[in-house]
């Protein structure tokens, strides 16, 4: 495998051309579905093979919102959630949405922005505000990053989370100004302390009153400020715009998108990021074209990407169910995700989730195993409205080998070693208990393999 630092960048970002070595087959389709959304049912993978990978991605990119009927269903759920005022119910509601969305890429991107503009309900403690922010992230998930940044800067949940609820000219709060540069837009080393102080002055007068953004002109510092070398009586919007204008902004976002979609590590070299950053800038920071390019690229289907990400808890739980057409108790699943470190609406800090290897440790490994076990044992979990065995039977799974092959296609980025397959087959045959119990046991074992933890 060519080292990432010496990779042919033009080839990397060119449209994926299937070859004998990297064919467009069920395994490749499974990989694309996992990266662009979640693991998908076998039939969806088979259907995808009728088109080129580029056409599949093109179709996904054409849909930037769910259909009316699904949105109405979710709207009803949202109203019910707000009626309870229970912030924890929000997580369950989002789990339900992820499990049932007809547009997985949109949810995946919403989750990406949730981790990027991390805001925790543990501090905000207001279901309505958290939901409003989530809607904002979804609305702009594949849209204009500049507009998203402007709006998130005035988002009450974000302002509460980063203590900018009352940013007065006499005591400018530098918290948000620092995070917008370090974590949201530019990355370390691309700004000075002076820029932070001056941007904080621009943002003075931005307050949250009665859970809404309010500009208090009396608390706004109307004096002259200098941000990134630009001087004037800059407003908050001007300050955010100046941040967006920095050359490092598209670099930073493109780098994060590569890490999210392509590989956890190593960090993509500058040479690989530059073309995407240039494309972002050319498209006025519109996200969709860059995401499309990543998902259609040779790099995504290369050895640099396949199996080079660790399954996040969300990918694990939601992907497991979606691939098996499953439904379950969304409250229980959201609680399990929280225990595994990816509580929806509850990112651990303003830095969001570290992801990658941090998903795996001795405690979470056991937790991930338990999550699968709980899912298959929970009487509320159904697969295609049926039991696991009936569903698998309907999918043509008639033997242990079929079962292993089926799961390998749906979930495994790297092949399962043959001796492991043999051991699972032996275990299945030698186990006592009903077919249902033995199948569950075999599924559980498959989902605890080290190979399963990779995406």
């Amino acid at each position, binding site marked *: 495998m060519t080292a990432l630092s010496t990779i042919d960048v033009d080839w990397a970002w060119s449209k994926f051309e299937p070859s004998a070595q990297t064919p467009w087959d069920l395994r490749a389709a499974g990989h694309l579905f996992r990266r662009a959304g979640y693991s998908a049912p076998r039939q969806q993978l088979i259907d995808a093979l009728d088109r080129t990978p580029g056409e599949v991605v093109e179709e996904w990119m054409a849909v930037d919102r769910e259909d009316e009927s699904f949105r109405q*269903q979710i709207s009803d759920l949202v*109203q*019910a959630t707000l009626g309870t005022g229970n912030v924890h119910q929000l997580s369950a509601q989002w789990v339900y949405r992820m499990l049932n969305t007809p547009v997985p890429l949109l949810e995946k991107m919403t989750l990406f922005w949730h981790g990027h503009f991390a805001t925790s309900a543990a501090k905000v403690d207001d279901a309505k505000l958290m939901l409003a922010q989530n809607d904002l992230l979804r609305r702009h998930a594949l849209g204009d990053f500049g507009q998203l940044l402007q709006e998130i800067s005035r988002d009450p949940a974000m302002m509460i989370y980063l203590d900018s609820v009352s940013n007065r000219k006499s005591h400018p709060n530098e918290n948000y100004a620092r995070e917008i540069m370090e974590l949201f837009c530019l990355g370390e080393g691309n700004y000075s302390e002076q820029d932070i102080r001056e941007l904080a002055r621009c943002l003075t007068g931005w307050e949250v009153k*009665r859970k809404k953004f309010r500009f208090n002109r009396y608390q706004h510092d109307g004096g002259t400020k200098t941000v990134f070398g630009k001087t004037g009586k800059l407003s908050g919007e001007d300050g955010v715009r100046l941040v967006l204008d920095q050359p490092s902004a598209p670099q930073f976002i493109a780098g994060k998108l590569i890490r999210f979609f392509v590989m956890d590590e190593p960090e993509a070299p500058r040479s690989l990021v530059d073309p995407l950053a240039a494309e972002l800038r050319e498209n006025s920071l519109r996200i969709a074209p860059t995401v499309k390019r990543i998902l259609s690229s040779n790099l995504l289907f290369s050895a640099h990407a396949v199996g080079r990400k660790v399954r996040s808890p969300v990918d694990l739980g939601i992907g497991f169910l979606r691939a098996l057409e*499953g439904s379950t108790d*969304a*409250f229980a699943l959201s609680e399990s995700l929280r225990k595994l470190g990816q509580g929806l609406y509850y990112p651990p800090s303003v830095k969001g989730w570290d992801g990658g290897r941090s998903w795996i440790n001795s405690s979470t490994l056991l937790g991930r195993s338990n999550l699968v076990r709980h899912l298959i044992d929970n009487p509320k979990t159904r697969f295609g409205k049926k039991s696991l065995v*009936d569903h698998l039977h309907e999918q043509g799974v008639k033997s242990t080998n079929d079962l292993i092959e089926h799961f390998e296609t749906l979930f495994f980025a790297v092949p399962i070693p043959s001796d492991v397959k043999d051991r699972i087959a032996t275990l299945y045959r030698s186990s006592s208990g009903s077919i249902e119990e033995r199948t569950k046991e075999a599924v559980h074992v498959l989902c605890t393999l080290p190979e399963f933890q990779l995406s």
Partner: protein
Amino acid sequence: MMTRAPSAFLGLFSLAIATSGTAAEGGSPAKFFPPSTVAYAELPNPQSLVSTIFDHPLRERIESLQPYKTAVQTPGYRNFEVGRSFIETHFAMSWREAIANFAEQGISVGFDGATNGVALIIRGKDANSMELFRDKLVDLARFGDDSQDIRSGEYRGITAHQIKKARLAIIGNRMVVTNNSDLGQAILDRLIDGEGDSLADAPRFQAARSERDAGLTAWAYVDVKAIRDSGVADQFYQDQIDNPVLELLVGGIQSSLNQTPYVTAGFSATATGLGLHVGLPHQNDWVPEHREYYFGPAGAGRGPALPETKETLFTLSTYRNFSEMWLRSGDLFGDQTNDEFAKADANLTTFFAGRDFGEDILGSMQPEVGFVAVRNDLSDQLPRPTIKVPAFALVMKLREPETMTRELRRIFQSLVGFLNVVGAQNGQNQLELDMEKLDGGVQLLTSTFVPEEDDRESTQAKIIFNFSPSIAFAGNRFVVSSTKSLARELITAPQPSQTAIQDNTQAILRADALRNLLHDNRNQLIAQNMLEDGNSRQEAEAFIDLLLTVVGYFDNASVRLGNADGRLDVELQIQLAP
């Protein structure tokens, strides 16, 4: 003497004897059980019970529901049907015909304290039917895994079968099934000889039997004294429950069970509903002084008659002297519970502006207490909450209305102020206090949540907009309500002609209001079902609509606790909609 082995209840039996001559025909099956029987139940006409349930018009309505049709298509139900068909084919008759033949004249069951055995006597149509029944049962056992365990023996010329631990014999048109040989022999002796001391001769059983109502579907008797004397449930018979809620619910009954000789239960199932009546002899002096709060002095405490309200969901009328219970908590509960009482007392005393909670607050009320819950009609109200909660109120009488009205009014004002201060610190909506004086000396103190400017017209408001905490006074009548409309309705409603009901406690849940309440929250319930069960919107709607439909088949459910004429009665009723 009864020995401790509740496991003797486990495992039923099979054994059959056919004989043409029997000494016992007719009469109560109790005469075949030994006098040491401590629990006995009989179902005189199983056919009638089956017919009441399965021929009820409600069955047809339930079967016409789509969710029912879906349910009978599930693999689990299909498996059950296959099993049932197999057994019906084996017996060459439907299961209903089987009950009509093999249990035509009743089923009785008893637990014998002397042997720790359980026995069942099934009385069928005739001897031939019972022989057939036995043969088919033995065949079934041979067909299964029990073929190695089938044995036969003889007792006084009667052949018996044993399958594993179960023994089965037939005598005339009766089948005796037991898990204990000694008990089986004792019953067979009485069946063959037609004599011998029996449960039917026991004085306590005779006393219980004489009080039995006619027309019951099933009747049961428990010899409480024998159980108590045996010491098998000493913990149950301790005088202390050590749980305040349980104490309030069953404290008085517990005292009675510590002394009463027996308990009977009668169950009735008719086309109009189900009823369960549990009765026991009771004397007022069995209730210790520290539990006087429960039944009142001389056991004369009665729940108050409550005024009529619209869309009533639930009413509870009871006699409980809460003040006395609070102050006697040291006698009623253990140390740990009393520590909690002490903490609660200190907090509540602060909450009630320094007035002693047990003495001054609870003590200012008479022990006749009513609780009313009604559907909260929010159709004309804005902001309107997404989740609709029923309005509820406590209806009481003050001991000294002249002084307490003013005190309670002031406490209410302080409370509202306190809640506003705490609410303001947490960004909660504020309460607006108001007072009205109506005709007849009626005073109404209300508090209403003030919506945010943007929420004034909301139809999806927060749950708190279900509430407008209020109190009302009229003479010695005092109402504490979750809404001002219910407070107004209760305090201005015409008072019932009787001041008290006949019972210590009576509770009624009305299905029509429950159905309306569920319907008000239909969207919420659907959403909850989607999230909890992973259902699609369509599936969740079907489930919730089924729930609403099923609730619509009922009229009300009630429970009453009465003590009069040396008896304590607990009665549960479920009435179907006409």
